């Protein structure tokens, strides 16, 4: 009985000691790796420190909608030297799509006056209507006055796509135009108030020395 109890106690102690050693080894290795800053040793992190710009792939290629991310143009391919040539820019369409988000619908659309159909990205809402109005040329003079909501939105954004087709993004709300509108309204109100005040209190005319 005594030997059985002793062996059981020994097993428990050895198991505990093994856990402690393993734990210490883990923390020491992790701390060491952090201190050294190297790529070797330690454990791979669950989330990589470098996040690729490519969005995470869906779990399945089937279902959902096709992503409109265009392939990188050939000009993006790096040459042998950093000197000479022209600076390669990130594709504009990708930049816009990054800021706008994923469109609800992207469909080619023939636009009056355009030789090739435009790829129109729809995000829903009021700006879609504005975009269609601008594309079809169905705007009115009121759109350019602060009395119409369209005044407070920018024009649709036209981005040349990688395959030569023009991509169109809807207008966005412009705070600059909002301030412009407020300034115009303020000016109108000021002029009206000034007119009525002058009419109400205008007891003198230019003939008087008291004008």
């Amino acid at each position, binding site marked *: 009985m005594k030997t059985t109890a002793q062996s059981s106690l020994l097993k428990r102690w050895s198991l505990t000691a093994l856990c402690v050693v393993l734990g210490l080894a883990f923390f020491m290795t992790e701390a060491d790796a952090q201190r050294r800053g190297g790529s070797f040793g330690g454990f791979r992190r669950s989330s990589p420190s470098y996040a690729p710009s490519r969005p995470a792939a869906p779990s399945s290629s089937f279902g959902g909608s096709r992503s409109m991310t265009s392939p990188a143009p050939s000009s993006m391919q790096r040459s042998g030297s950093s000197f000479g040539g022209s600076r390669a820019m990130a594709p504009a369409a990708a930049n816009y799509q990054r800021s706008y988000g994923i469109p609800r619908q992207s469909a080619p659309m023939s636009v009056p006056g355009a030789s090739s159909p435009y790829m129109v990205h729809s995000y829903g809402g009021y700006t879609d209507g504005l975009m269609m109005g601008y594309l079809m040329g169905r705007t009115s003079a009121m759109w350019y006055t602060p009395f119409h909501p369209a005044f407070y939105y920018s024009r649709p954004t036209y981005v040349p796509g990688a395959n030569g087709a023009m991509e169109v993004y809807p207008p966005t709300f412009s705070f600059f135009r909002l301030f412009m509108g407020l300034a115009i309204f303020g000016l109108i109100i000021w002029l009206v*108030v000034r007119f009525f005040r002058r009419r109400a209190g205008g007891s003198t005319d230019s003939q008087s020395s008291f004008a």
Partner: protein
Amino acid sequence: MRELSIESNGSLEKTAVYINGEQIGGIHQMMLHINEDGDFDTIFVYEGTDKQMYTKNLFADYLDNIKKVPPTFTEEEAEFLRLLTVTSDGNLENTLVYINEEPQDGIVDLLVQIQRGSPAQRGGITSMFKKAEPGESPVFRAEIQYRNEDDSVSTESVFG
């Protein structure tokens, strides 16, 4: 000696003030109170050419940056107006009063108070959302008191 002339029909709209023959503009307030007892109050408040407000003694002070304007009344218009002229150096003994260029005598008291009204409020757009404060109403008062030969005193309107 300074010569002050006021040409008017009794209303503020048809009132021109001349100093030494030149018409003056930008006047806000004018007060003449001269009597035989020695009161000699001549207050002149005007906006100068530099947009500053000045308050001066009309016959004693130099009128800084006073705004001179071209004559506004034609001769035809002037026929329907009366002209009060006061020449003085600030002393009662050297003060002469003319009405339509006729010298006056036996004056007991001369009171001329002309003040243009000020708008109720001036505060830009924000003033629309505030309760309007009452402004100053225009004042036009011009009276002259004479002592008659029977020692009675009669009061007349200067531009009446």
